[in-house]
């Protein structure tokens, strides 16, 4: 049984309600406006590429005149508004909003056009109406015109009349999305200067490299490259594997307790828990967004260029963030039934975690840790690029010798083969182990 919205204080349509009604519409409109703005950008870009540079001024760039900006802003606004009132808006679809006439009938064209006109009239007044407006439930400013209501389909699903769902290609909205995607593909092709002709025409340029790479020279497999300064492939390979192993194991040990602090179902029992949860989540996301290669730059400066300690620290930090995020999502996805049953026996919160949560998450924790080890091995091979140590040191050493050494590419080939073998073997092992656990 549903009830009309009513706030605790007894007022019918409080600021909170008005904001929660207004925000999705605002968001939806902004999305539409932005998508039409994107179309305008695309049109400008393609005009430049296909017409201006070719036929007007090869060295110039087509730019908007001063009066062009207001024209574009206003016309995209109008297009967004029209798609809004015609019920063809992507934003409204995304937020589950739909325009209805009185008594949930489909609005007629004249109603839609009237709504389009009133939307202009209330443009400035609308924010004030949201802040200080009516107490009548569900009425934002231009809904009072009674030409139509914006209805939140998800929130009021039960009351809505059944409508036959339309396929995406039957609506302008769906076709517009397809148009946006194709535009993006076209723009992407142009902006990244993809040129298939060049790829084929200049195949001979890199031909000898391929030949050298597939005939690797393993003379430095066990022998130091420069005695006393640069070691053998095998030595660096071991260094890489231990670097990844250290980062994964210690990262997992730190991430395990943190993941419970970042899980909503464990922490969401009071305000204090929510604060910890939010802080942890923000921390994970912030740490995770810094690629380990960037962290390695910092640590290489800190502890010394080429020191594997730098690479290990970079991988360690990134592993904590990545694993804690994955772990906490697993913690949030546990079957709540057993937890409920244990709470019903009078168990303490942490007893429920130990007996109810941990047994459920152990297999996926192990699987994620192994998977992370996999990623860390692959990361460890390139982290030397910025001075993080490991097998990459040799990779880039030989690559930089190209021109000075005749067989530099063959040496690079040997390093690559070693990397491939190790990655492949470890990948196979971790896949088998994950299979066993799952």
């Amino acid at each position, binding site marked *: 049984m549903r009830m009309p919205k009513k706030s605790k204080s007894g007022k019918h349509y409080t600021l909170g309600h008005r904001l929660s009604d207004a925000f999705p519409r605002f968001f939806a409109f902004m999305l539409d406006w932005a998508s039409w703005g994107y179309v305008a950008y695309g049109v400008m870009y393609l005009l430049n590429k296909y017409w201006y540079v070719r036929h007007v001024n090869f060295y110039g760039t087509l730019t908007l005149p001063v009066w062009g900006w207001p024209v574009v802003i206003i016309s995209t606004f109008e297009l967004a508004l029209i798609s809004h009132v015609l019920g063809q808006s992507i934003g409204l679809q995304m937020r589950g909003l739909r325009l209805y006439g009185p008594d949930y009938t489909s609005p007629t064209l004249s109603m839609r056009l009237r709504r389009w006109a009133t939307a202009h009239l209330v443009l400035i007044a609308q924010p004030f109406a949201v802040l200080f407006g009516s107490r009548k439930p569900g009425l934002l400013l231009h809904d009072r015109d009674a030409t139509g209501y914006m209805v939140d389909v998800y929130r009021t699903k039960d009351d809505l009349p059944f409508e036959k769902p339309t396929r995406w290609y039957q609506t302008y909205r769906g076709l517009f999305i397809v148009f946006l995607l194709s535009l993006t593909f076209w723009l992407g092709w142009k902006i990244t200067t993809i040129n298939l002709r060049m790829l084929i025409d200049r195949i001979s340029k890199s031909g000898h490299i391929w030949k050298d790479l597939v005939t690797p020279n393993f003379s430095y497999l066990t022998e130091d490259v420069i005695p006393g300064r640069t070691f053998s492939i095998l030595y660096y390979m071991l260094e890489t594997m231990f670097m990844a192993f250290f980062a994964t194991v210690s990262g997992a040990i730190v991430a395990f307790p943190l993941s419970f602090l970042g899980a909503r179902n464990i922490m969401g029992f009071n305000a204090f828990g929510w604060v910890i949860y939010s802080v942890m989540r923000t921390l994970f996301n912030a740490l995770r967004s810094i690629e380990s290669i960037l962290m390695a730059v910092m640590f290489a400066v800190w502890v010394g260029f080429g020191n594997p300690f730098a690479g290990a620290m970079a991988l360690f930090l990134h592993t904590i963030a990545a694993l804690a995020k994955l772990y906490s999502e697993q913690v949030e996805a546990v079957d709540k039934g057993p937890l409920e*049953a244990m709470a019903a026996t009078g*168990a303490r919160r942490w007893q429920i975690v130990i007996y109810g949560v941990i047994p459920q998450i*152990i297999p996926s924790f192990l699987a994620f840790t192994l998977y992370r080890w996999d990623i860390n091995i692959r990361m460890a091979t390139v982290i030397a690029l910025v001075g993080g140590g490991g097998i990459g040191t040799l990779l880039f050493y030989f690559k930089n010798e190209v021109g000075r050494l005749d067989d530099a590419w063959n040496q690079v080939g040997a390093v690559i083969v070693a990397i491939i073998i190790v990655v492949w073997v470890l990948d196979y092992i971790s896949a088998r182990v994950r299979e066993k656990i799952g």
Partner: protein
Amino acid sequence: MSQFGTNQAAERKLNIDAGGGQPLPRFSQRVLAIMDDLIRVEHLTKIYERGEVLALNDVSFTVKKGEFLVLLGLSGSGKSTLLRCLNRLIEPTAGTILFDGEDVTKAQPKQLRHLRRRMAMIFQQFNLVKRSSVLTNVLSGRLGYMNPGASAIHKYAKQDVDDAMASLERVGIPEQAYKRADELSGGQQQRVGIARALMQNPELMMADEPVSALDPATAHSIMQYLELMNQEDGVTVIASLHFLSLARRYGTRILALKDGQIVFEGSPAEIDKDKFKEIYGEDAEEVEVR
């Protein structure tokens, strides 16, 4: 019951009138009455804020010690919510619940845990930790009593392990003790659930649709364990059931809910065709489980 406005539970919460407007009986009579009431629910209301749904609407009833109370009602009538409100797995919006004279709704966390130890619960989906052994699952019924430090490192008292084996023997599956819980059949899993509940030495057993996920024959065997607890150990049972035939066979009293309100309260024999239609709707046909 058309609108939110007609529900006065919130007002009552502020000024609870146990007699509901009736003149109160003498003090001594009230004390005597309260003594054999294990549970006394007054004006219990639950509103799910998110969906703005009124799940329980001003429900009041009492359960006497030793009763086998059956809750009847369609899906969504509020049976599960009612059971979960009794041990506050779900926080009631308004109303009072007295368990053996103690106010559950006002209990502080520690007191609530101590109250929950006395009320066991079994579930429709069994709610076992699937990857843990049967024995560990049974032992988890004892968590509320265990020494917290020892339980943190999975160290159990010998007495607890013996009790767990004894409860498993009582439900007839001692040989399954070291298997993983998800290796067992549905009926066996529910027996583990009962064994877990037995570990609490409960005064009240709440069963939330304990046999809905089971076939009729297994359903009867599970219900018979509940009956045994009720009759031999004197445990009060509240079970929510779907089938009227099961309710007639096992219940000593029936409480029927519809749209969060009590529509029938009385002995199983009193439910005739009209009452049945009132509870289950006009189109319902009675189906028997043998």
